[in-house]
């Protein structure tokens, strides 16, 4: 491996930019594949397959004609930032942890965000806009707002919509969500940007209990993560 390529790989990882290191398992020629560019020389089909694997975080050997390539995926860890240390969060947080996500709960209200209610999770008691600026959502981060309170949800959404977060969802009825979109529109967000918000959050599976709602949200963000066609676009 050339030092220049190695340094680029390490820089991308430090910046939490998804990147795949592709090695020809013959002469050892290497390339770095990013979501928007390729450093090095690879057949088009191998680049496409590499990007698919990068999205699914599934490294391995790719065969192309007689050649074999090793695709090594370097993705930042999957995270879910939950706005609101509310009842549903108490179910969503452990379920998301089991699904492999690093979970961060943001709620400035001290009586909600307690270690008793949320053991073994990172709690942030800053205001959501400050918390979100510090957490820097990236393309492997989901943001879910659950407070129903515009004072808390909206500032988090303002930061989320300016980020590469792969999934942004808001709990609340359709009426609540329509009012939320109106407020965000007044802040200058256009319809294409607002279409990134999944609201009401979750797949329509008739969820009623907190666990069912958490399940519907996790199912929806999983589908979006893997670009499963039926639900990949926000409604």
């Amino acid at each position, binding site marked *: 491996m050339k030092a220049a390529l190695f340094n680029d790989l390490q820089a991308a990882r430090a910046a939490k930019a998804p990147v795949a290191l592709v090695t020809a398992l013959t002469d050892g020629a290497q390339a770095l594949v990013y979501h928007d560019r390729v450093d090095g020389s690879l057949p088009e089909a191998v680049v496409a397959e590499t990007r698919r694997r990068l999205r699914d975080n599934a*490294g391995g050997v790719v065969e192309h004609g007689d050649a074999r390539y090793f695709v090594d995926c370097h993705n930042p*860890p999957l995270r879910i930032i939950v706005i609101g240390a509310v009842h549903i969060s108490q179910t969503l947080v452990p379920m998301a942890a089991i699904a492999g996500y690093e979970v961060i709960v943001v709620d400035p209200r001290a009586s909600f965000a307690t270690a008793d209610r949320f053991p073994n999770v990172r709690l942030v008691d800053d205001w959501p806009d400050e918390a979100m600026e510090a957490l820097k959502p990236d393309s492997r981060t989901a943001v879910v707002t659950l407070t129903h309170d515009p004072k808390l949800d909206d500032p988090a959404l303002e930061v989320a919509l300016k980020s590469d977060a792969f999934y942004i969802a808001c709990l609340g009825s359709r009426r609540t969500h329509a009012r939320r979109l109106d407020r965000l529109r007044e802040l200058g967000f256009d319809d294409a940007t607002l279409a990134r918000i999944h609201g009401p959050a979750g797949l329509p599976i008739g969820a009623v209990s907190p666990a069912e709602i958490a399940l519907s949200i996790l199912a929806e963000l999983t589908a979006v993560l893997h670009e499963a066609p039926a639900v990949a676009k926000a409604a």
Partner: protein
Amino acid sequence: MTDASAFASQEDVLATAGSWLAEGRKVAIATVVKTWGSSPRPVGSRLVVDGEGAMVGSVSGGCIEGAVIKEAFDVMAGGAPRLLDFGVSDEQAWDVGLACGGKVEVWVERLEA
């Protein structure tokens, strides 16, 4: 959780490779590229070796490290990068120490200064 921990462990090993190279040490990187059957370490697992035989990380539960390090020395001495193949049959697996009966391919390359 698996995702985050895999990332963290990879990061440590590659960061070590980088700092060793910066210190002027010879460095080889061995990477698991394919596994069949029961292999102790998943695809993407790495062993980093320096010219004195110091190492971090792993490509197996310890059973093939010896053979991998031998090839790593050859690569650090200027040999071409190479693909190593361990396992196949249970009998051969036993010979190289893969008593689990698994099969694993390991890519060995030099980190060039």
